[in-house]
């Protein structure tokens, strides 16, 4: 049986539903030494800012049961260096480029969207949910009024495919999702990391200098799955689902919950071949279950 893996995220067409999550894959160069990047549907690049950033000092990681808390803080070369040095490399592969953008202010988000509007990227992923920066970040993603304003203004700044990345650290993700859809986003990606903390009991200090950070990995999968399902029942625009996906079974769960495509994040760290193994596993599952197109799996819960 021939399986059709192509998915259309409302204007962003991927040859297969397996992508890699922002911040876990750099700009693809390092993992390109471990697998053929052209096997991926898309790469969402490390969170970009207008100016280069060094990120947070001090300890940036705490490992937790089946997860990790990171406090990297958007270390990146800035949007201009990305356009000049990283896009040509990514373009030499058969994959879609998703530019993950982060601003301190709404104006900064808009300026980046305008700059990227003229750049060779396939989608802009508006990250309004990063927990690792002092001003902005999470504050943007959790306040419905601010969400409305930032999405509406960024939408007007670019004609590119626009994806908005949602935070799980909200009281009602459905409300946020509805606003984002109403303001004209083409697609939603979720979830970003879950706020978390780890304490060194002998130093009697938090492991991370900033106190808390973002929890990712298998530990957050059930949370992510539930939120994807909630959002699926709330909006019509497609969902790029992520949060703890490490195996093809995990990926299929997200598709069944309502995601149209998935992203592999933290799992890359323990298994650099995870995206490829997940893609192969999805194909086997399709054959086994009699799906001819991967789009049929989305939301196909009995």
């Amino acid at each position, binding site marked *: 049986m021939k399986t059709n893996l192509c998915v259309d995220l409302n204007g962003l067409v991927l040859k297969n539903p397996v992508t890699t999550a922002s911040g876990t894959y750099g700009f693809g160069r390092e993992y390109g030494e471990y697998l053929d990047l052209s096997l991926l549907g898309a790469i969402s690049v490390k969170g970009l800012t207008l100016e280069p950033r060094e990120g947070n000092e001090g300890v940036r990681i705490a490992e937790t049961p089946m997860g990790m808390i990171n406090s990297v803080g958007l270390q990146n070369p800035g949007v201009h260096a990305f356009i000049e040095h990283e896009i040509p490399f990514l373009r030499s592969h058969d994959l879609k480029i998703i530019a993950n953008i982060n601003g301190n202010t709404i104006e900064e988000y808009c300026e980046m969207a305008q700059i990227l509007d003229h750049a060779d990227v396939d989608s802009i992923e508006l990250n309004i949910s990063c927990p690792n920066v002092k001003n902005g970040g999470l504050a943007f993603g959790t306040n419905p009024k601010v969400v409305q304003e930032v999405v509406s203004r960024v939408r007007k700044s670019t004609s590119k495919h626009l994806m908005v990345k949602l935070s799980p650290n909200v009281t009602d993700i459905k409300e946020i999702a509805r606003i984002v859809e109403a303001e004209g986003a083409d697609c939603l990606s979720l979830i970003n990391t879950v706020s978390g903390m780890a304490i060194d009991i002998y130093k009697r200090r938090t492991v991370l200098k900033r106190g808390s950070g973002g929890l990712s990995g298998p530990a957050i999968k059930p949370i992510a799955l539930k939120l994807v399902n909630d959002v699926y029942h709330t909006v019509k625009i497609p969902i790029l689902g992520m949060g703890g996906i490490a195996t093809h079974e995990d990926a299929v769960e997200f598709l069944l919950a309502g995601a149209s495509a998935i992203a592999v994040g933290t799992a890359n760290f*323990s298994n650099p071949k995870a995206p490829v193994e997940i893609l192969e596993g999805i194909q086997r599952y399709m054959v086994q279950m009699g799906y001819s197109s991967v789009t049929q799996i989305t939301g196909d819960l009995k």
Partner: protein
Amino acid sequence: MRFDGFSKIVDKDWIQDDVVMISIERVAEMGEIIPGQFFNIQASAAGYPMLRRPISVSGYDEKTVTFTVKVLGAGTKQLSEHRVGEVIKLMGPLGNGFERVKAKKVLIIGGGIGVAPMKGLIEKLEQPSSEIDVILGFKDHPYLTDSFRTRCQRLALFSETISGFRKGYVTEALEEWIKTTAYEMVYACGPLAMLRRVAKTLNEAGVPVQLLMEEKMACGIGACLVCTCKTKKDDFNFKLSRMCKDGPMFYGSEVIFDEN
């Protein structure tokens, strides 16, 4: 493509209650290995702990690669429980290892489990061109010392608790020896506090030192940015280099040691 795959354990030897040497088959795809490089190893096929554990190469020949592992927590414990004949999953060699420069007078400093990569280094330092002095420091019983003893001119052994060895810090021997010997290159690995003192002493003396640094890692290849080393950037600024990809070897003159 770089190596990420399986290799069989061919030898295992407990050299202390909590330190084990594990040798694996050297797989062709691993390619060239440089002392100071490391492998990122899956502790258990069961998948817990989730992240791989970075372990330095502590010796290699055409057929095998040897690691020396100190059991600290869950990951190293599981690593140490593998038996000869079992396979482990690992990727590497990774990172920038030592630059083996031609030098007449060389000094090697190792502290604790930091002696593991220094063993790999001294075994590959060109003997004829160098006279090598070695300073090793331990909390308890010294280990791996034979590899150094047979290859060095002078050996100073420190132990905090065991009698018959020098007490105190390895930097005491360092400060004595640099007064009388003009070292052209120093190599060091050990606890952060030791590396900080070694770098300070040698920077002041104007002697180049290659430090093998350590930081908690995730991807091990430079993609996730969770491992950083604060390094100098022009005269006034700093940058946060990736420990795993830009290091783990850094020159003492590059590193900025913050007081924590």
